């Protein structure tokens, strides 16, 4: 069970962060853990090293466009990213993220968050508190039934826990 409300630092990226940036195709044979170390390296070489469990990825429009590869969401999750916050997401990435236990939050005002800001994020209430700037942004809350899955750590973990295995 993952705690879903959390505090962490914002890593800010631009529009159209694609799945080749998140999980480069030519490295897809690596283990999930090794692949995660290359997440976003083409645009932020130090990201995998500096991101700490509970930190947030904040981005512009259409986050996660491109391939259907789940490694894009898995890599962020393995690096401990607490949630991805963006005004819009590519459809397959959005489904994948929730299926894998990574909260993806639609936030129109994500652009108000700057790199390094300290955020407190509550996906159930749909509230993002920017402690650095003392302001609160709203995001689309994740509905209960999906949040139960996210909390369990994703669809498979959720199915297993419901089967009691």
């Amino acid at each position, binding site marked *: 069970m993952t705690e879903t409300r959390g505090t962490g630092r914002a890593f800010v990226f631009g529009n159209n962060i694609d799945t*080749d940036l998140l999980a480069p195709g*030519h490295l*897809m*044979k690596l283990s999930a853990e090794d692949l995660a170390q290359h997440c976003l390296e083409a645009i932020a070489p130090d990201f995998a090293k500096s991101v700490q469990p509970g930190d947030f990825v904040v981005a512009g429009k*259409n986050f996660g466009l491109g391939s259907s590869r*789940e490694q894009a969401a898995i890599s962020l999750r393995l690096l401990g990213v607490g949630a991805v916050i963006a005004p819009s997401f590519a459809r*397959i990435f959005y*489904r*994948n993220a929730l299926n894998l236990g990574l909260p993806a939050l639609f936030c129109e005002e994500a652009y108000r968050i700057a790199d390094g800001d300290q955020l407190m994020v509550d996906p159930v209430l749909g509230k993002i508190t920017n402690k650095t700037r003392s302001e609160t942004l709203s995001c689309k809350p994740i509905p209960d039934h999906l949040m139960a899955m996210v909390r369990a750590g994703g669809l498979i973990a959720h199915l297993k826990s419901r089967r009691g*295995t």
Partner: protein
Amino acid sequence: MSETSRPQLVSSGQTLAQKLLARASGKPRVEPGEIILVQVDLAMAHDSSGPRRWKPHLDSLGATLWDPSRIVIVSDHYVPAVDGESAAILKLTRDFAKEHRVGHFFDMEGICHAILPQKGLLRPGIFVAGGDSHTPHAGAFGCYAAGFGATDMLGIVVTGQTWTIVPETIRIEITGSLGPMVSAKDVMLVLCRELGMDNAFKAIEYGGPGVESMSMDERMVLSNMAAELGGEVGLIAADEVTLGHIRAHGGSATEADLAWKPDPNATYERIISINLSDLEPQIALPHSPANSFPINHALGSPIHQAYIGACVGAKLQDLHMAAQILKGQRIAKDVRLLVAPASSQVTADAAADGTLSTLLAAGATLLPSGCGACAGMGAGLLAAGEVCISTTNRNFKGRMGHAEAFVYLASPYTVAASALTGCVSDPTKFLPELAVAQ
């Protein structure tokens, strides 16, 4: 290109997406925004997204496949094996297909999206769930075909069902006819620029006389690259051309399948009109399909590699387009032209009709059928600083090899013309020579 929005009617007709989703959900009618449970007719996955990702979970859940006869597995991403890891992935896929008696397994026969229509597996009206983002490709056959990630697909192959949100539809109304050396790829590069790639949770519906005049190979380009627009599906209503293609490939289709078309008074989120007669060759510059311009914008930029490959850009007609330019010519000295036909059937057909010898005589290197360099996995990857012009559908940073490589996207005509000169070239400029040669 122009844009109009239609007035909302009180009792409006339905888009093709609404009709297909009503069928899949067993409801008389569905409305945009509704969350529905749908029954899947065909579930497709490949060697990268399928068995290797499902197997551990299927084993630990003690689950089996809902209906092996409705499951298609295609090994296309890691083919042919180039090292121990890819060999192991392919072996796991083969073993899985055998163990689970997967109804349709195609091992190294071509790219999944090319395989579905080639094997006659598509039929207007059905819901196709694919473990690949270009699954909308099959929408050219009037199917509701959408891409899903591996975990969603796992749920689908175990239960035969999934959920979706009924999308609003963007209608692309296409008129006119394509001039020489212009193709459906150029239409899509214009649309990526004009509509952008941020149309998630939307259906794209193509129609009009311009679409009806296109071959199935060209219609598939429109549907395939609905994925670049961010759309859930890229739908084209079936007509006699569709039915003819399905029958010629051993599938079943009847006149009743022609009923899968939008109502004339359907409500669209917006309608975009394109006149093919005004279209000129386009090119997308690195690192996004939306970064596209008329070809004039990039003329003369030097290239190192020309790549004719992928589900979108290496069908038989794509090879014909390239051959039209390359016939009797020789590619530039410092350029490599790589051709990876979309399926082994395409290779055989191109060999039979002489296209292959035209390409080889021009200096092309023939590669195995599969995703290859398009997926960043197979032959034809790029080094730092190298520039490639490609018939593929995506040019994201790092996709075809090194993160510091540069990929231009264009039609097979433009890629072939550029291979001849060694720099980005306008294929329409090759018309006079062709006329003289003939």
